[in-house]
């Protein structure tokens, strides 16, 4: 396991008025990985990012970036971080190129127009560089935010819902940019409500709810561990109802009467598949086709948050 580039140690945030938005959050993020931070509205995702980046004062705990404490060595820590905020916060009258140049300067980096051109081209903003921001579309504005964050060559990039309001094609482009960054060795932490996005990009998934980290796990392992699979059985001849002999399997029959669905847990000792197939045969049903399907991360996520709420 590589050395963590970002460590969050029992981070606490209680807002003025007593609301506890982060409750002893601990998290290690490894150099070069993509971590997706998932959680429902109000879970504390933005607060966590804000507390790491210096927008919010933590009320407890400690964060280091590249070994630098974000409070006592804030200069060293922050110069490694790029932040794309959730809200589109941009100066409306400023030109795209100027606002990006400003960001680079603010982070103490010498002017480098060739580098900024590369970023703007990558984000398909180069043609718009001399336009005032207010004349851009919402998706373009979000890409300006990304360009600003990349302008100072961060080693750790926070993307707080980068794909909100971005169309499908651009979202794919953005994923491409993120993959490119990962190849360049940038560590990426992204929050998203599109689970499909996390599924497509993340190496690890963290789930946060009510200010607490519920789980951090390799995406593949998570899906294996928690994955429920479904088996669909197409029958040669439709049946009116499920035969009594098959009642124990918890099957569902669809409207046409020709498809049975069997849910099973890949973690279980016995999946029951063999037993089911035998039972089908004994009941005299002829199987035309069988298909299995892994449940998506989304289903896992919804299950997890619900479980957390009940506990």
């Amino acid at each position, binding site marked *: 396991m590589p050395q963590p580039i970002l460590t969050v140690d029992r981070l606490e945030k209680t807002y003025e008025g007593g609301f506890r938005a982060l409750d002893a959050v601990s998290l290690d993020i490894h150099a070069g990985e993509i971590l997706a931070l998932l959680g429902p509205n109000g879970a504390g995702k933005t607060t966590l990012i804000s507390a790491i980046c210096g927008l919010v004062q933590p009320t407890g705990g400690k964060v280091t970036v590249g070994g630098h404490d974000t409070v006592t060595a804030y200069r060293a820590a922050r110069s490694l971080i790029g932040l794309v905020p959730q809200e589109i916060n941009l100066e409306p009258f400023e030109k795209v190129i100027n606002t990006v140049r400003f960001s680079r300067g603010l*982070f103490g980096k010498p002017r480098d127009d060739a580098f900024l051109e590369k970023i703007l081209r990558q984000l398909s903003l180069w043609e718009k560089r001399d336009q005032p921001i207010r004349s851009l579309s919402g998706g373009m504005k979000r890409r300006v935010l990304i360009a600003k964050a990349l302008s100072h060559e961060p080693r750790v990039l926070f993307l707080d819902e980068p794909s909100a309001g971005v169309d499908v094609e651009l979202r794919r482009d953005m994923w491409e940019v993120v993959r490119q960054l990962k190849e360049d060795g940038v560590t990426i932490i992204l929050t998203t409500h599109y689970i499909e996005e996390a599924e497509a990009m993340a190496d690890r998934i963290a789930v946060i709810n009510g200010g607490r980290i519920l789980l951090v796990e390799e995406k593949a392992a998570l899906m294996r561990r928690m994955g429920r699979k479904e088996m669909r059985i197409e029958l040669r001849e439709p049946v009116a109802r499920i035969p009594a002999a098959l009642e124990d399997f918890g099957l569902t029959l669809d409207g046409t009467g020709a498809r049975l669905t069997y849910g099973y847990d890949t973690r279980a000792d016995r999946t029951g598949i063999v037993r089911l197939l035998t039972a089908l045969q004994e009941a005299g049903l002829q199987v035309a086709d069988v298909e299995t399907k892994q449940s998506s991360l989304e289903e896992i996520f919804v299950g997890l948050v619900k479980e957390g709420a009940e506990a």
Partner: protein
Amino acid sequence: MNLTAIAAIYRFEMARTFRTLAQSVISPVLSTSLYFIVFGTAIGSRIDQVEGVSYGAFIVPGLIMLTVLTQSISNASFGIYFPKFIGTVYELLSAPASFLEITAGYVLAAATKALAIGLIILGTAFFFVDLQILHPVWMLTFLVLTCLSFSLFGFIIGIWAQNFEQLQLVPLLAVTPLVFLGGAFYSISMLPAGWQAVSLFNPVVYLVSGFRWSFFGTADVALGWSILAICGFLVACLAAIGWIFRTGWRLRP
């Protein structure tokens, strides 16, 4: 020291000024010209001379001070309030820049603009009245110190303000009356003794007095007091800003 950050903020702010150059310069020049016409010509024809200087010339330092004070405060307060209002402040807060550097960028830009307008008005004044400047270096020193300290003050107001009304409140309710009562248009020696004593609690009196001394060599209060007053104000503003940045007051929840 992240000098690049200071320069970036300064440049960004100055670019905003140049974008709105016409309105940033025309309106103060116009209003001061009106003052010259109304006070200098209409009233001046009745008052004639104050402390051996023609009334029209006498009010020039006060008028410049009035404009420079309001400009410094409004430039700097707007400069930091605007990012707060539209949310771009996130970038300042997450940058590897100290609070001092951020303040320096905004305050220097606001002071530059105020200084430029002050000088333009001084230039305009030559069109209206015969003017002499006995101590030009002191004049510039006073002007620069005033621009800096009141830009700092404006910066504090911009951080404090939570809406546009509050942003206007302090300049409107405090600064304008203090300047008008601070001897901008008269010498406080023209007041009855009781009001003279009250005036000495008005910090602007010291500014105007010192500034006017650099023009005409006459002052309401001793020059030393004027210098002390402005430096004291500067230090007080710096201390307040230091505290704000340590505690994150109104910036970092």
